[in-house]
């Protein structure tokens, strides 16, 4: 398969690993954070840790959009779905995410709520056009990666004058989350493997503050094994040279200025919330999007009564530490016991891209053995 197989070539990966070992030899123990859940998933799925030098440790960041939605917001979604006139539409992987009291959208569906999986917000809009007697609500979830599709759909809804469509907006921004991690006490992360998909939209300049204000290098990376290894190599080279710059390993997809059409759509349709709660990280200022005044008519939070209850993250769970790189998944007492992918307690176990779920699915034999 072209554009995939080349980047999964084992010989090429080993060649990078040889260079990695060479560059790492001159460094102390180094902690690097891969921000995106897609990277976490790829690292475990391909067993890439086997190719990393012993003094290079990868820790897993907050970039799993499903994981960071707080339980209260899931409950709000369920409450919307339970309105008899509402058809609640969502990407598939949000359906299993439990809210408070362990209830998920999948369970709400089993109890009679009209919940349907869509593959794009435009499918939800088409559904609203097809079924004008239903109130179709789309569960808008994700970073700047998925937010443009929601924005374009809202624009389309307004053009077509679709009255029975609205969006429950939970889109979040990656920059403020990185800042929150860098601002937390005792952060010992030396550099970041930057998220590839988000960067196709926002470009590379939004990471400049990481290098300029915090002195940490960032390398935006693709999702295949050689991409990730190469990005680690680029970071180590910067650390060796004592520089902190933003570099782009994923040049075949990511442009420095990002996708300007998508960015313009975000600007038009959304505005930044004063603060937004992240599961595992708590409230982060200016980190979430809500629907702008011009599109208020299509905002599910304005159209329906939404309970807006806050639910505390479970005390036993160390997701906050895992997300800040201070603990490994298996160091958490409830990992694999009270907290499993089927019945997750904490955010990192929720989606297959969460650090704990990825480790539980692919790597727990290394700890148990």
């Amino acid at each position, binding site marked *: 398969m072209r554009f*995939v197989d080349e980047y999964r070539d*084992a010989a090429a990966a080993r060649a990078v690993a040889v260079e990695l070992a060479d560059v790492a030899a001159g460094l102390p123990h180094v902690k690097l954070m891969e921000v995106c859940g897609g990277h976490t998933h790829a690292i475990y799925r391909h*067993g890439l840790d*086997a190719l990393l030098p012993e003094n290079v440790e990868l820790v897993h960041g907050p970039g799993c*959009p499903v994981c960071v939605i707080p339980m209260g917001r899931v409950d709000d979604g369920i409450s919307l779905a339970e309105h008899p006139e509402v058809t609640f539409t969502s990407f598939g992987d949000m359906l299993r995410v439990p809210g408070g009291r362990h209830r998920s959208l999948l369970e709400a569906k089993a109890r009679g709520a009209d919940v349907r999986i869509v593959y794009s917000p435009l499918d939800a809009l088409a559904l609203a056009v097809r079924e004008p007697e239903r109130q179709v609500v789309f569960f808008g979830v994700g970073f700047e990666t998925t937010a443009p599709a929601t924005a374009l759909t809202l624009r389309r809804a307004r053009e077509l004058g679709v009255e029975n469509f609205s969006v429950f907006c939970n889109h979040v921004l990656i920059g403020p989350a990185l800042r929150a991690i860098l601002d937390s006490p005792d952060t010992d992360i030396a550099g970041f493997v930057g998220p590839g998909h988000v960067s196709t939209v926002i470009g590379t300049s939004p990471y400049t503050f990481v290098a300029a204000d915090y002195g940490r290098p960032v390398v935006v990376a693709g999702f295949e094994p050689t991409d990730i290894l190469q990005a680690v190599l680029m970071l180590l080279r910067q650390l060796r040279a004592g520089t902190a710059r933003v570099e782009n390993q994923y040049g075949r997809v990511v442009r420095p200025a990002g996708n300007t059409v998508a960015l313009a759509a975000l600007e038009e349709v959304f505005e930044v919330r004063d603060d937004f709660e992240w599961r595992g990280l708590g409230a982060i200022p200016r980190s979430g999007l809500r629907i702008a005044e011009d599109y208020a008519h299509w905002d599910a939070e304005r159209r329906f009564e939404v309970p807006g209850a806050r639910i505390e993250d479970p005390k036993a769970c160390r997701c906050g530490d895992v997300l800040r790189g201070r603990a490994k998944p298996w160091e958490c007492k409830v990992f694999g016991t009270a907290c499993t992918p089927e019945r997750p307690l904490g955010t990192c176990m929720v989606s297959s891209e969460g650090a704990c779920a990825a480790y539980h699915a692919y790597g727990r*034999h290394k700890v148990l053995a």
Partner: protein
Amino acid sequence: MSDVVTLADGAGGKASRRLVERLFLEELRNPLLETLDDAAVVSANGTRLAFTTDSYVVRPLRFPGSDIGELAVNGTVNDLAVSGATPLALTAGFVLEEGFPLDELRGLTRSMGRAAERAGVAVAAGDTKVVERGAADGLYVTTAGVGLLDPRVELDARRVRAGDRVLLSGGLAEHGIAVMLARGNLQLEFDVESDSAPVHELASALCGFGAELRWMRDPTRGGLATLLNELVAAAGASVVLDERAIPVRDDVRAACELLGIDPLYVANEGKLVAVVSAEAADDALAALRAHPLGAQAALIGEVRSDDLPLVLADTPFGGSRIVDMMVGDPLPRIC
């Protein structure tokens, strides 16, 4: 466990397993059911029979490469075949919704007849029920089958030993991907057809290896990964897969990549997985490859004795990972 049935309970993964073990097995427990194999073994007057049943609720009713009629025959034939039995006769029960077009019903039944003929088995009895419009999604079919067990083999996960080899009869994920694409809501265009086919001839070829053949299954719902997890749990040994050896057609792999779905978890309807002794592995592989349905057959892994019975995959990068049982339905990821 949730206190109502959810769709995950029917997806063939962990949730399905739990529903069967904690509800059906608890209420109906008996020595025949306890094995939870694809088919039960019933002995009568010294003859050993395999006995199985399966329901079909696939949407859409027709999809590239097959339809619900053919699937209902092949599925039950395959459950008998991988139990080491020659299928003798099937029954078919239809739940029809009021208003269902007769032409459509005739077409699907004809397809069933053709599949039965191909597998050399008769649909010997049947039942029809009609429910009100809206009470069933067009049509559901349940088939049951009985087969004569091959006296040369005794298939049992507990006979699986360290060093045994794992064989797969062909490319993964074609049925699941064909059906997912046929539902039409992905707007992807691939020419992927369901692999629905009877595997009784492949199974019969392997039965020729007698005691060297330890265990067989067909990787349907939940895919190869779920099936092998059931094997390691029953055998108390581990299976280590060589990822590169597992056949997946390029276009199927591309569709899986786009959807973020692992082909190891996608349903197949015309494949079998067998565990054979190391000594018989090469000949058994050749026997599979000699049949048109087994042309892409491959040796995909090895059984190892481990403290923890797990399915592992060695990756091309020198690492290894767990291949876990599926939790619910494979759902396309957000990004």
